[in-house]
């Protein structure tokens, strides 16, 4: 190899080395900067342990909560932070043994899970859980709109905001609850079917409600540890997912038969929000 070629290669090697060092420094700087940005994000940790209680027995399905939420959060058309489902459940009256149907109004909203799958899958920490008060919240300016949280949420509460084009969700009205108020939906509920409280306060009336009643949660099998506690779904939530001898029915997938009496029980749900989908 000629001297000239050797020198040429040496200078090239030097150039590549400088390039690699420069690239490493830039990448390192960017990572450190992002880590710093992560730390400097205003911490909103509080000492509260918020929980939400829904008493299904009291809900009359007036949708005042849905309207209040729309007004409070200025939610666009076609998407909802909360909604009320109508369930028709067949059951056997324990006193008379007759088959009856009862209609339940089941309000749904974000469960602010202790183990939230939406936080786990968010690639940019746009969805995060405040470990202090347990609220699962969204940083709108950071969200990239990949919809992964929507796919991961078992409760279907996440949606893309059609105006901001970022993911949005129910926040349990953090702007109100962190200032001592209750969420808008709780405030307007005429029958007190919705209640909200702070478990870190031993004198909070929510404690009495939880201790007195049997509490159910939605989809406990997902392991998300939801913090919306339901009263009045005992023996219902959980039954419709998979017990009994189910047969296919196009509009009410779960139909089961009481093996003792041969009576057929149906679980039917009517959703009045389907019509809003047309606007999306």
């Amino acid at each position, binding site marked *: 190899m000629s001297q000239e070629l050797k020198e040429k290669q040496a200078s090239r090697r030097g150039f590549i080395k400088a390039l690699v060092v420069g690239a490493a420094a830039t990448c390192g700087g960017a990572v450190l900067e992002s880590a710093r940005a992560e730390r400097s994000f205003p911490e909103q940790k509080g000492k509260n342990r918020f929980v939400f209680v829904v008493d299904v027995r009291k809900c009359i399905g007036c949708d005042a909560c849905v309207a209040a939420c729309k007004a409070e959060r200025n939610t666009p058309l076609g998407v909802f932070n909360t909604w009320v489902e109508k369930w028709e459940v067949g059951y056997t009256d324990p006193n008379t043994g007759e088959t009856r149907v009862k209609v339940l109004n089941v309000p749904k909203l974000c469960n602010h899970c202790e183990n939230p799958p939406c936080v786990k*899958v968010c690639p*940019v920490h746009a969805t995060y859980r405040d470990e202090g008060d347990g609220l699962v919240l969204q940083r709108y300016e950071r969200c990239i709109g990949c919809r992964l949280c*929507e796919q991961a949420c078992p409760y279907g509460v996440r949606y893309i905001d059609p105006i901001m084009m970022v993911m949005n969700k129910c926040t349990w009205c953090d702007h109100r609850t962190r200032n001592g108020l209750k969420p808008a939906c709780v405030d307007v509920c005429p029958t007190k079917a919705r209640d909200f409280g702070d478990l870190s306060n031993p004198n909070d009336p929510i404690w009495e409600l939880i201790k007195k009643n049997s509490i159910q949660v939605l989809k406990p099998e997902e392991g998300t540890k939801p913090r919306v506690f339901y009263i009045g779904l005992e023996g219902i939530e959980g039954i419709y997912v998979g017990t009994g001898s189910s047969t296919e029915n*196009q*509009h*009410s997938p779960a139909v089961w038969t009481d093996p003792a009496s041969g009576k057929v029980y149906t679980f039917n*749900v009517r*959703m009045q929000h389907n019509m809003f*989908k047309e606007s*999306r």
Partner: protein
Amino acid sequence: MIVTHGPTLPNHIVEWGVLIVTYPYFTGIVAGSTVITALVYLFGLRKLEQLERVGHFLAIALMLVAPLAPMFDLTQPIRAFKVPFYPNFSSPIILFFILWTILLLVMFLKSYFLFRRDFIQKAKEGGIWGSIAGFLTFGARDVRPEEDDKKVKFWAGVSIPVAMFFHAYVGFLMSAMHSMPLWGTSILLLVFLISAVVSGIGATLLLYIVGQAILGEKVNPQVLKVPTLVMASFAGFDLFVLFIKYVSEWYWNTAEWPLIAMAIKANMLFYLVEFVGLLFVLIGGLTSLNSTLGGISLLSIVSLISVYAARWTMVIPAQMIDKGHRGIVEPHIKLIGREGITEVIALYFLVFFLFFLFVSIAGWKSASHKEEVA
């Protein structure tokens, strides 16, 4: 308008459409084409070198275009660059960035050593392509065929598992959504990977045969018999895994099964194309079709169509099932706009543009091949 069957939750629509169907299709071909790389560099089938070269061009073009599909899906594509700056390492999307970067580096290193001789030769010819090729030699213009070949072998060996992981990640991402019926199963990863081999070999064979025909070069179908047999056997393997998946779903008969059945019925055309196509590739690939150019071309086309249908059946039906498990929502496929068919067509054009660009720079045939012919 969004069409629903049965009661569905108010926020539920099919968010991921044709773009997200296209993304694993592209990455699958990248992963699948590395099987030919394995045949050439690991199993020593040097007769397939030219085929491998075409597959490599295609793989780089697809690798560069594939991320655009999920980026277009974001509606504001530039937001994707927030991910490396605020990474959440528990999110499966981070895996994409890591694997894509590694694969891109490996592919470029392999390309450099694979095409160096071509670049050197082209640089001597002058002109625009010559000066581009000259730049791509990065100043190293001494010819060292044996050393280069060793390095190509090494980087080709590295690229195979990385490309496989890169594609399998899509299956992992979807199976991580365990609350979604049809997705929340780890067999999904295997389904993605096996069908990828079918489409990857199919795409490479088809491009090679068409390219040779355009250039007026002869192709010996006997040389293509091995990759065709591999494609056919993987089609059979894919059918087997799909059979296990759907029979298990049916036998478990969970509460979601009626909805899964509804979603399958709604996409029956795609399921039929997938299963019949794969069966055709399996049977055709084992018969005399694998010894004629027309037969191999037909098998390749069918493999590409059936795997596209397979991608559809992996991505769309699961999203149709409502989270309330009581109804399904039909996908809303648009011509223009987010998740529009126009965007997908644009991506295909971009892939072919890049493919022709790479072929123009490095040449359809390798320098060593030209020397042998001379």
